[in-house]
């Protein structure tokens, strides 16, 4: 106990710094992937055959391979080919590479959820908009969008919760997120070595954060219950 109390301030500080990086990756992924997913979704539904075919292939590959492999390929592959990393050096470079991999991976998952959400809006809604002289843009923005959002909030919530924990995969390219921070006390850091408890302790951070998100997403779901 004495040892724990001595180590606690150092560990707590290091884990907080790591968690900040986790949060950053989480936020950047959502900000990038939510709109990019919609673009990919429109692309896969495009009437231009080559566009939809290529995008469907991309979505299949991205969803069909582990995110960990994608991280490794995106981080190391350019270096192997061009002889120099395009991501820049150090933590900033690792973060950029991670963000690209995560945004792309999650956008592909989101695109499929969007597609289901749009398909679930009855065709009669679009037709009702058409006969009222609305443009395609107005129909999407004023009619389809909110109905789609209502339908996709539960599956998107699921993905968001998964994303919180998936950020730990960036450990594989040594991004200094919270798992990396916890693990550093095993190898030795800040004068502490051979300690496993900081690594276990990281789970509390994930648990609290997903707890907060679950409450917030539940509130959003409730908010959309005013219509059916």
């Amino acid at each position, binding site marked *: 106990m004495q040892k724990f109390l001595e180590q606690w301030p150092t560990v707590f500080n290091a884990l907080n710094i790591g968690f900040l990086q986790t949060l950053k990756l989480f936020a950047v992924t959502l900000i990038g992937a939510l709109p990019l997913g919609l673009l990919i979704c429109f692309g896969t539904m495009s009437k231009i055959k080559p566009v939809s075919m290529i995008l469907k292939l991309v979505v299949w590959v991205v969803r069909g391979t582990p995110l960990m492999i994608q991280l490794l390929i995106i981080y190391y592959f350019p270096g192997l080919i061009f002889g120099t990393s395009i991501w820049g050096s150090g933590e900033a470079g690792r973060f950029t590479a991670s963000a690209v991999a995560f945004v792309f991976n999650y956008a592909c998952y989101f695109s499929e959820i969007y597609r289901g959400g749009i398909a679930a809006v009855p065709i009669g809604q679009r037709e009702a908009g058409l006969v*009222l002289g609305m443009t395609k843009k107005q129909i999407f923005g*004023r009619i389809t969008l909110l109905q789609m959002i*209502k339908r996709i909030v539960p599956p998107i919530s699921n993905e968001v919760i998964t994303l919180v924990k998936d950020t730990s995969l960036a450990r594989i390219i040594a991004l200094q997120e919270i798992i990396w921070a916890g693990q550093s006390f095993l190898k030795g850091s800040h004068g502490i070595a051979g300690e496993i408890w900081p690594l276990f302790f990281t789970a509390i951070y994930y648990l609290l954060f997903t707890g907060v998100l679950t409450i917030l997403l539940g509130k959003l779901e409730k908010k959309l219950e005013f219509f059916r």
Partner: protein
Amino acid sequence: MAVLEVKNIEKHFGDTKVLNDISFSLERGSALAIIGSSGSGKTTLLRCLNFLEKPDGGEIFVNGEKIFDAGDTSKLSEKELRARRLHFGLVFQNFNLFPQYTALQNVTLAEELFKKEEEGYAAGNKEYRKAELKKVQQHGMELLEKMGLAERANHYPHQLSGGQQQRVAIARALALNPDILLFDEPTSALDPELTGEVLKVIRSLADQHTTMIIVTHEMAFARDVADSVIFMDGGYIIEQGPAKEVIENPKMERTKQFLSHYNE
């Protein structure tokens, strides 16, 4: 002059011909009922009139202006297509109200969007815009009052009965003052108890000489409310004429056969 003139409309889905040589005209202020068994092409005909389906042949005139010509292959701009669609209002079988909007918002949405597109609106100051939108609201309320739904204006569709929803849909279709109001089996999704209140509204519209086309399975209603009737079968018009005459004394064998099911 006829407000609507339909000439030789054809429509096929793949190899199946669903409309063959459909021609009729409609006088301003009169009501036309289209009857016939399911699959006879009634609904497709309505959908062709406002371009939810594109006819493969024929011409359509509204107020003497040609709004469709199958022979003309030049592509219409979205703007032009929208303008032509607005000659018609359509009431769907399953209402298709927008669930995220209240009854009043359902009625005013389209008019509001058009108002915002007007040049004067964009140029006007804040007070002017407010007043203009207020006018749209008032117009929407008037229409709901006409449907006997004023006190339901702020209800969402799922809080309304089927009959009330359909009356909101009728108000919505009237909001942009169409030349011709189209009804696609407006009571088919309603139980008999609710059918009455919707038919009553349509009847009152007919009494006010609203130009309309009603696809319906309610024969007594068609006979009493419509001025003329078209009987369709297999994508053809088999018989057309004054409503009472066709429904009480059909000339064609196929019409007699169809109507006999209603007298059992």
